[in-house]
């Protein structure tokens, strides 16, 4: 009798496992949900604090304002602190990311994969989530991450799409579809960065006519230079429409004076 029970259990286990597995369509839906929950069709303004820790260097805390107009993919960062960085800014116009330094008064074209302020933060961390658009996804497993039941999903970049990390592994909260943990890999497959998103908040968006979820806290750990890490805190979200002519070099320059 005991043997029969064990046999039945052995037969049932793969079936149970496959029942828990997400189908490709369900996996895609999870990824689309992540994007959708963070999507904001209107304008976005937020105050962010960025603490960068690097080996053999003193910690630096940056304060900056993030401006977004997701409709036409416009994005702007204006550094407010520390004093040495105040007035510097990034502006994305079409496919180009521009960096402005008031010290030299010059604009430099930078890659979209630029490390913001030389930290471990990338433009994509502060921009609208476009995972479903940029990556193909595969469900890998369902597993426990702390107290959360999470889907582990592997994302591989779609052909002819340029991204900083061609492979990403996500741990997505099975209940809320919030990303809890994210691992980003190089082309070689080597783990380069691990990110944690311990806190999410939601705000009501008039333009979306719904709620927007955003990670209030993000922690990035450099896996190549183990001692380097960055903490980002997003504060004071404002979803009211921004001035129409704001996303221009002239505007950023005027704020940098």
């Amino acid at each position, binding site marked *: 009798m005991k043997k029969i029970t064990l046999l039945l259990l052995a037969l049932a286990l793969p079936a149970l496992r496959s029942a828990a597995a997400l189908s490709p369509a369900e996996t895609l839906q999870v990824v689309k949900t992540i994007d959708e929950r963070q999507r904001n069709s209107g304008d976005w303004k937020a105050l962010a604090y960025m603490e960068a820790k690097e080996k053999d260097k003193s910690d630096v805390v940056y304060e900056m304002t993030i401006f977004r107009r997701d409709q036409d993919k416009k994005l702007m960062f204006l550094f407010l602190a520390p004093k040495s960085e105040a007035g510097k800014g990034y502006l994305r116009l079409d496919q180009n990311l521009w960096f402005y330094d008031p010290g030299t008064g010059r604009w430099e074209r930078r890659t979209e994969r630029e490390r913001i302020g030389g930290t471990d933060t990338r433009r994509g961390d502060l921009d609208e989530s476009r995972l479903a658009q940029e990556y193909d996804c595969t469900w890998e497993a369902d597993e426990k991450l702390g107290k959360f039941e999470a889907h582990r999903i592997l994302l591989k970049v779609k052909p002819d799409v*340029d991204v900083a990390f061609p492979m990403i592994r996500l741990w997505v909260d099975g209940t809320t579809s919030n990303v809890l943990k994210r691992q980003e890999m190089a082309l070689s497959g080597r783990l380069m960065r691990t990110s944690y998103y311990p806190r999410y908040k939601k705000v009501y968006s008039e333009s979306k006519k719904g709620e927007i979820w955003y990670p209030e806290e993000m922690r990035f750990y450099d896996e190549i*230079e183990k001692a380097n890490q960055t903490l980002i805190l997003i504060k004071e979200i404002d979803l009211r429409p921004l001035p129409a002519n704001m996303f221009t070099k002239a505007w950023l320059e005027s704020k940098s004076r």
Partner: protein
Amino acid sequence: MFLTDLQIAGRNLAKHTKRNLFLGGAIAAVTALLVLMGGLTAGIEGAMLESATILMTGHVNVGGFFKITSGTGAPLVNDFPKALEDARKAVPEIELATARVRGYGKVVSDTGSMDLVLSGIDLQAEPMFQKVIRVTQGNLDDLAQPNTILLFEDQAKRLGVRSGDALTISSATARGANNTADLRVAAVAKNIGILSSFTAFMPAASLRELYQLKTTATGAIHLYLKDPERSAEVAARLRTALAADGWRVMDPDPQAYFMKFQRVNSEDWTGQKIDITTWKDELSFLSWILTGLNGLTGLLASVLMVIIVIGIANTLAIAIRERTREIGTLRAIGMQRRKVLWLFLLEASLLGLASTVAGAAAGIGIAALLNLAHLAVPESVQMFLMQQHLTVTVGFRPVLNYVLGISAVTTLAALYPAYHAARLRPITAIHHIG
């Protein structure tokens, strides 16, 4: 007649041995100093040409940039075999051509990290590379194996690694995707000036893999000529020829390729553009060292020349004062003013020539002794002097220029006192007391 004048001038000089020895000694010392300074500058320039043209640049380079979007330029020459074929057609005097993959990445060890300019090398194709590199740890031949790296002593020290240790290199491909490679330190070499502070070498194939490049893509083709002095002319010819062959060629910009990223990325073009540079362009970031040394030599020369002019003028003024009665007698027995002027000028030029020749000989001798002594340059200075041992290269032409130049200045300095002597009236001069 000239020989008689020369004899008279020589005797006059010999008559006032002490004074002339003192003045001649000063002129000789100045000449020797200038010869040494010039030799030092020439030595640095020579060392730069020798080591830098093997380490990081050819005499002429066919490099360029490839931009997928207008904001992201990578130092690439796609289809370099075709570019080399076209270059060979335009420049038959090419002695050797090598392809180098160019890159930039963060090298990370267990204890440290640093950003390095990476040069992808095919060791088999560059036998002269081994002449310049002096390995202190490991084996240079191991650099032919995939995923290896050659570091210089200071880099190895900063990263805390020895030959055989593992490193990770992280960089972004031309499309902006991050990539990494795990490398083994094949060898550690002695520092070679400032270049070795930021350049490391990898097998070209490994660097291509890191950047996901095709085998027909490289960073630059280094062209070596029989006569490096002709690089500028060859570069101009190559620029025209490659443009005629259908390549998009960038305007001349005398800077190293890694100084051009900002400008290239701010320009609104995509695709491939070829950039032709000379070794002087690629090493322009070091030219301040030579400019500084030349400036210092120039300043020193100017100050010393002023001292010489004052010294000569003063000495001749004293000589004329002492020899006023003699001048009066010579004028009274029929010597023309022009002759008096000529004799004094001849005296000064003889002193100048003898002193500068002696000074140049002393300078050449000291330079030879310094070269023989194989003096080690302090590490902090090595970076700027581009040499580990002091090398003073004294050329014939610069020495000849110093000798003739200083002699001419000495002669010119005597012009006013000699003119003054020639203008003396015989009767006044004969009655001169003093």
